[in-house]
C-alpha cells in the first residue's frame, strides 16, 4: 500500500481551461480521503489524473515514492470504480471481477479463488454467473467494487460511485463502502459532489472549487472551523446563514449590526481563539450562523436579550426530531458566486432575508407568527468580506 502525493499539479486543457490549479495534496497511506465540490470543480479530473486517464500538465503525482506522471494506467497498481460502474456487458459477474487477474495471466485456480473471496465479501456469490444486465443497481455497484478489491491495489479510486443509486440504497452502500475500506485498509480517493457522503465516509475531506483546493480537514473540523466562505457555505446541511454585518462598539459592549434595525450582541466566548476579530471593530464582516445555533428563545432561555431577534416565521418543516424554521430577518445575505448548494436556495421576503434555523421539536412556533430567536454567538463564524477568509488567529 501507499499514499498519493500531489506536488503543485495543474491540469490545463488544450482550449486553455484550467481544471485543476497548483494542487498540493497528500493522501496518507491507508487513508479514506473524500474530495468534494460542486460539479465542474475539477474533482473528477484530479481522480482521473491519479488513474492515468488524464495527463498532468504541470507538477508531479506520486504513488508511494514513485512519480507516476508518465506511467501507463495499468502499471500504476490502482483500481477504479466508475460512476456508471462500467461493467463489461458481455461478461458474467465472475468474469467482470476476474478480468484484471486474467489479463495479468494469473493461474486459473488463483483467479477463481480470489473472485470467490471478493464475491463472499460483497455478498455476490449467488450472482457470479449472471450478466450485469440481470443485476439490480446495488448489485452492479458491488460488482464494480469487487472488480476493484480483487486486485488488492495500492490505491482505490472511486468516482461518484453512489450517484446512480436511489436514496435508501445510497445510505446503505455508504456504510458498506466505508466498512469495506476500513477492513481492507487500502488508500482510497473518493470523489463526490454530495457533502453528506463526504462528511459521513471520510477520514479527511478535501473541498475543491474552480480547480483550487479550499481546505483539507477531518469532517468535524471542516464543519466547526471552515477556512473560508465557500467551505462554510458548502459544508453542512442546511447550509450556514451568511450575512453582511458590521462590528460595532457601543460603550464597551460589542455587537454585530446586521442592519439599522437588527443587531446581535457579542458573547464572551466569541473572541476565544480569534483575538484578531477585535481589530475588526468598526469594520465590515461576514457573519456565519449555522442553523443549529439559531434556537427558539422560548425554549432556550439562557441567552441574554441582546443575543435575540424577532422575526416573522415564513415556513416550518416538522421533521419529527427537530423543526426546520425559516425566519425573516432584516439583514443582507451573502452568497458567494461560486456556491451552488442544492438545498441552499436563497429565500427572501418583504421582511428581509430568510434565515434557516433548527428548532427543537418541542418548539411551538407557527407559520405567520412573529417569534423570538436566540443566537448562540459562541459558535458564530466570521469572515473577511474582501478575502473571504475566516477571521481567526
Amino acid at each position, binding site marked *: 500500500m501507499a499514499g498519493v502525493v500531489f506536488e503543485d499539479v495543474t491540469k490545463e486543457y488544450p482550449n486553455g481551461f484550467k481544471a485543476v490549479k497548483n494542487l498540493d495534496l497528500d493522501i496518507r497511506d491507508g487513508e479514506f480521503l473524500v474530495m468534494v465540490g460542486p460539479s465542474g470543480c475539477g474533482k473528477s479530473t484530479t481522480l482521473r489524473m491519479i488513474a492515468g*486517464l488524464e495527463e498532468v500538465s504541470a507538477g508531479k503525482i506520486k504513488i508511494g515514492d514513485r512519480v507516476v506522471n508518465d506511467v501507463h494506467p495499468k502499471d500504476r497498481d490502482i483500481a477504479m470504480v466508475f460512476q456508471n460502474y462500467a461493467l463489461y*456487458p458481455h461478461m458474467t459477474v465472475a468474469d467482470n471481477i476476474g478480468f484484471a487477474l486474467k489479463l495479468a495471466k494469473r493461474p486459473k485456480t488463483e483467479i477463481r479463488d480470489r473472485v470467490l473471496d471478493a464475491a463472499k465479501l460483497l455478498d455476490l456469490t449467488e450472482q457470479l454467473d449472471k450478466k450485469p444486465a440481470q443485476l439490480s443497481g446495488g448489485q452492479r455497484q458491488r460488482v464494480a467494487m469487487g472488480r476493484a478489491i480483487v486486485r488488492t491495489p495500492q490505491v482505490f479510486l472511486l468516482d461518484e460511485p453512489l450517484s446512480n443509486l436511489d436514496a435508501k440504497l445510497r445510505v446503505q452502500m455508504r456504510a458498506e463502502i466505508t466498512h469495506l475500506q476500513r477492513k481492507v485498509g487500502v488508500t482510497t480517493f473518493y470523489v463526490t459532489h454530495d457533502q453528506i457522503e463526504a462528511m459521513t465516509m471520510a477520514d479527511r475531506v478535501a473541498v475543491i472549487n474552480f480547480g483550487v483546493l479550499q481546505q483539507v480537514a477531518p469532517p468535524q473540523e471542516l464543519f466547526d472551523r471552515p477556512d473560508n466562505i465557500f467551505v462554510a457555505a458548502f459544508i453542512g446541511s442546511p447550509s450556514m446563514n451568511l450575512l453582511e454585518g458590521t462590528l460595532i462598539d457601543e460603550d464597551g459592549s460589542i455587537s454585530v449590526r446586521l442592519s439599522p434595525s437588527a443587531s446581535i450582541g457579542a458573547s464572551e466566548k466569541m473572541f476565544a481563539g480569534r483575538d484578531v476579530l477585535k481589530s475588526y471593530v468598526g469594520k465590515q464582516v461576514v457573519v456565519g450562523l449555522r442553523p443549529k445555533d439559531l434556537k427558539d428563545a422560548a425554549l432556550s432561555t439562557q441567552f441574554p436579550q441582546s443575543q435575540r431577534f424577532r422575526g416573522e416565521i415564513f415556513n416550518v418543516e416538522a421533521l419529527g426530531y427537530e423543526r426546520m424554521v425559516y425566519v425573516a430577518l432584516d439583514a443582507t445575505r451573502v452568497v458567494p458566486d461560486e456556491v451552488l448548494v442544492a438545498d441552499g436556495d436563497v429565500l427572501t421576503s418583504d421582511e428581509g432575508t430568510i434565515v434557516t434555523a433548527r428548532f427543537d421539536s418541542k418548539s411551538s412556533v407557527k407559520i405567520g407568527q412573529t417569534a423570538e430567536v436566540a443566537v448562540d454567538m459562541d459558535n458564530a463564524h466570521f469572515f473577511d468580506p474582501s478575502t473571504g477568509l475566516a477571521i481567526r488567529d
Partner: protein
Amino acid sequence: MSPATRLWLVRAAWIGSTIATGAAVVWSAGFITDPEANRGLVVIAAIALGVVGVALLFKGMDFLVDRLPARYQEAVRPWVFVGPAVFILGIYLVYPAINTTVLSFKGRNSQEWVGLQNFTDIFTDHDSLISLRNSLLWVIIVPLFAVGIGLAFATLADKLGRRAEATAKSIIFMPMAISMVGAAIVWLFVYSFRPPGFGSQIGVLNGLWTGLGNNPVAWLLQEPWNNLYLMIILIWLETGFAMVILSAAIKAVPEEIIEAARIDGANDWQIFWRVTFPTIASTVVVVATTIVITVWKVFDIVFVMTGGNFGTSVVAQRMVTEFFTFRNAGHGAAFAVILFVAVIPVMAINVRQFRIQEERR
C-alpha cells in the same frame, strides 16, 4: 341559411368533387397510356395520378370502414393501411416465388413436369458447378474482407481527429453511392488490357505493371484469379457500408468501459478483442449477413466485366443467362430456387440478430 339547406350543399359539394376527381383520374389514366402524348406531361400526370390515387384509395377505404358496425371498425382499420402493401407484395413477390418454384420442376418451355431433372442437370453440369463454386467463394471472401477492412477502418478512424475522421469516412463510404454497373465500368478501366501492338495500355493496373517493365496482362482472363479481381470490386463497394455501421456501433461503446479495461491492465489490442469486439458482435453479424445476401445476388458485376466467361460465372448471373440467353426456363428457375434457399438461413440469422440488438437498447 337553414341547417337543412347547408346539409344539402355540403352533400352536393361532396358528390360533385368525387365525380370531378373520378373523371380526372379516368382521363389521366387514358392520357398516360396515349403513345402520342407529350412525355413530360405524361410523367407529371403519372405522378399526380399515383399520389391522388393512393390518397383516394386510403380515404375511400377509411370511409367504408367508418360505415362498418362499431365493433369491427378498429379490427379492420389497420388492414386499410397494411392491406394494399401486403396485396402488392403478394402479387409481385410471393406469387412469382411460388411460380418460380413450380417452374423449376418443369421443362425448358414450362410445358411438362420433369421432376428433379433441372436440379440434377445443374449439379452434374461442369459450367453450372463452376458457378456454384464461384458463388460460394464470393460468399466467403467478400463479406470476410468487407467486414474485416470496414472494422479496421472504423476502429482506426475512431482514433483520428473529428475532421480527419469525417473526411476519411466520406471517402471510404463514397463507392456505396455508385451502382454496381457503374462500379463495374469503373473497374473495367482498371483491369483494361490491350494486346501488345494494339495501342497503349489505358488500364491503371497494366499502366503500373508495364511501367515496372513487365508485359501487359489480360487480368480478367487469368483463371481462377479473375474471380478474385471481380470480388475486389464488391469488396470496394461494401467496405464503406460495413465501416459506417460498425463505426456507429464502436462509438456507442461507453468510454467508461474502455477506461475500465485500461485500468484493469488491457493493452489496445486486448481492449479491442476482449471488450470492444464482443460488445459490437451482434452488429458485426448483422453487417456480415447483409453483405452475404448482397453477394449471393451479385449479377451486374460479373455480367458487365466478363459476361460470366473465363470461369467467372456465379449463380445469379447464371440464372439470367439460362432464362434469357439459353431460353431454358426450367434451369433458370432451378438456379433461382437454389439462390432463394441459400439466402433464407442468412436472412433468418440477420433478423434474429437484429431483434437481439433491438432488445439490448
